[in-house]
């Protein structure tokens, strides 16, 4: 087996499709995901160490996850009821599934 072949062996994560959004209820810890949802809750709070953090809860019909933007106190367009699509790695934050500093796209409200 060549190194190139070894490199091309798909990792488990690589099987997850990240190009089409999946249901939030179906995500797992340590999985790379692309999901769509609405901002259900917004939280302004200090990160331990004094870094301002914007936390929001993104929900769709199947479930919810925490989205954390570090170093930001506010992001234009990320407000209650806003629809967006995010892509990132699912981690754990205080016992809840979360995605930190994801790539995000705001969607039209009527989506």
């Amino acid at each position: 087996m060549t190194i190139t072949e070894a490199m091309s062996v798909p990792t488990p994560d690589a099987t997850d499709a990240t190009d089409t959004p999946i249901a939030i209820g179906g995500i797992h810890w340590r999985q790379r995901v692309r999901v769509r949802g609405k901002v259900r809750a917004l939280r302004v709070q200090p990160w331990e160490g004094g870094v301002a953090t914007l936390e929001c809860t993104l929900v769709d019909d199947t479930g919810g996850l925490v989205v954390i933007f570090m170093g930001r106190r506010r992001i234009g367009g990320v407000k209650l009821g806003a629809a967006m699509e995010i892509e990132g790695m699912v981690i754990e934050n205080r016992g809840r599934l979360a995605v930190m500093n994801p790539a995000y796209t705001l969607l039209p409200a009527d989506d």
Partner: protein
Amino acid sequence: MPKGSLTQDRSAIQPIPPTPAVEIPESRGFRVKSKVLGKALHNDQLAHERLGKPTALAVFASDALSSTAYASEEILRTLLLGAGAVGVVAFSLLIPITMALVAVLVILIFSYRQTIKAYPSAGGAYIVTKDNLGLIPAQVAGVALLTDYILTVAVSVSAGVAALYSAFHGLYPYRVPIALAFIAIICLGNLRGVKESGKIFAIPTYLFIMSMFVMIGMGIYKQVLGGGLSYVPPTDPAALESTAAVGILIVLHAFASGGAAMTGVEAISNGVPAFKAPEATNARHTLVVMGALLGTMFIGISWLAATMHIIPSDSQTVLAQAAKAIYGTTPIGHALFLFTQAATMLILVLAANTSFADFPRLASFHADDAFMPKQLTKRGHRLVFSNGIIALAVAGAIPVIIFQADVTHLIPLYAIGVFTSFTLSQAGMAKKHIKDKEQGWRLGLFVNGLGAVTTGVVTIVIGAFKFTGGAWFIMLLVPIMVFLLVRLNHAYESEKEELEHEAAKAAGAPILRYHSVIVLIERLDQSSARAIQYARTLTPDDLKAVHIATDHERAEVLAEEWTRLGLSRLPLELVDCPDRRITRAVLEVVAEAASSGNTEVSVLIPRREYRRFWHRFLHDHTADSIAKVLTDVPHANVTFVPYHLGKHTPGAKLAAEVLTTGGDAVDVFTHPGVPEDGQ
């Protein structure tokens, strides 16, 4: 806080007395109650007033004796005015039927002498039945008796009003309001705690006994020496013309109607502890005297009615017609007539009062055994069973209203309950004799056995003949009530079992690891600040403020203000609530916080306390409804943090005084920069 200041503070602390430093004001409700009902009584003021025999007779016999005011009348009514009326023959049947009822009375008196001997400390039907036949029969006896107490109120008050309008005909249209007013007065008197205090009772009871004996005596005198009593002018001549054959059925029906005379016989056996020592002996003597008086008066009145051919009428009682005929129309005669009517009315109203003494006590027995709501065991402001008294007043008013204070329509419902409980308690006594085999048990067994059989037969007769008249309602009501009480008991028992199951172990169970505190914030104001201040004393693992955003603009303003004031050390969560269902949104937030299973969630709700009670109507009760739904979430605990509006509320004054005397509170807004972790 630096250590130095702590020691300095400690040295500055002056010892204070262990009583509240400020006067805690009484609530408005309590002040009104104290005005209306009198000073609140303390537990040790529960008077055990002991009654001598003459007073005891007056207290306990008013119910039984008063029934003579309508018993003869009801027998006559059945014979003369009912279906299959027998016409003028009725008057010759009245005395034998009365004698039969008096025979039952004699058996009952002897039976109850046994009961008093065996149960010197309160031997009501409920206790006797429970002891000997079990809890379920005791419920039957109790419920039957309770329904009869309710009917005693209705019947006695209605009959009392009848005595009133027999003398003053103009009052007839107002009989229902007058009856209700009587019930209200008696209820109020009992809530104040009119003890079974002798004098109030003694006078009307003895006046009534006197008036009856004077009337019967005058009647006998006129009959024997004064040339005989003449017939009173018939109020309803048609009633005399019927010539239907006398059948056993109509006689039994009349007998059943007269059974009402026996109600109240059990009162003495309920109240033995109220007698002066030797209680049992005095009670038995009093019982016999009462039986003798009741029997004599009953026979006397029946004799007068039979001799003078008195026909019951709606506007005048038999007693009133007899008194009028005997005393004549002279001024003295009229005065005597009014005196008789007044005495009758008074004793009838007092008879209702007997129910007010017995019903709450019996209901409290039921409730003690967890067969009725526990509220009935609570003694109120004046050490009486206030809830039972109010329940009886309401329950007694209902039949008065339905039947328009008409004794005749109430009578068919009446007496079956009392006889059911007689039967059960006598059967219980018979069983006790067989079980205990005490000295002279054979005689006791005979007496109580005879009592049980007799009252059993009477119960069946009453049930059968009054069935269509209304007894069916009671015969339906009692089993349904017993069924409900048994269900209630199961509910109480299973609740108790669950609550007590391994309670000690549960108290020592490991606590949940995390404590999360959620402060609900509607806007930034003094009341929210109070809640945040309190939340910081709890030192939870996780503390956050939650704002339910029904209006996004307001939410953003709040968030900005939050950051500007430096409050962002305390995270503020804005939760979207596009459907404006605030309680639902809070429920979801709290359920989420508690969902990990290892978290105790405290929800702090700031609540404004209002200056005047009507201010409450200016605001909705979101706080209360939130608290209500949160009780459904396990490990969610709600705390209201009060904020006292206005400077003149009792609470605000109290808070101000506490602050100046002992508080060292730091306002979260005046010291926004003081962090809890001590920077």
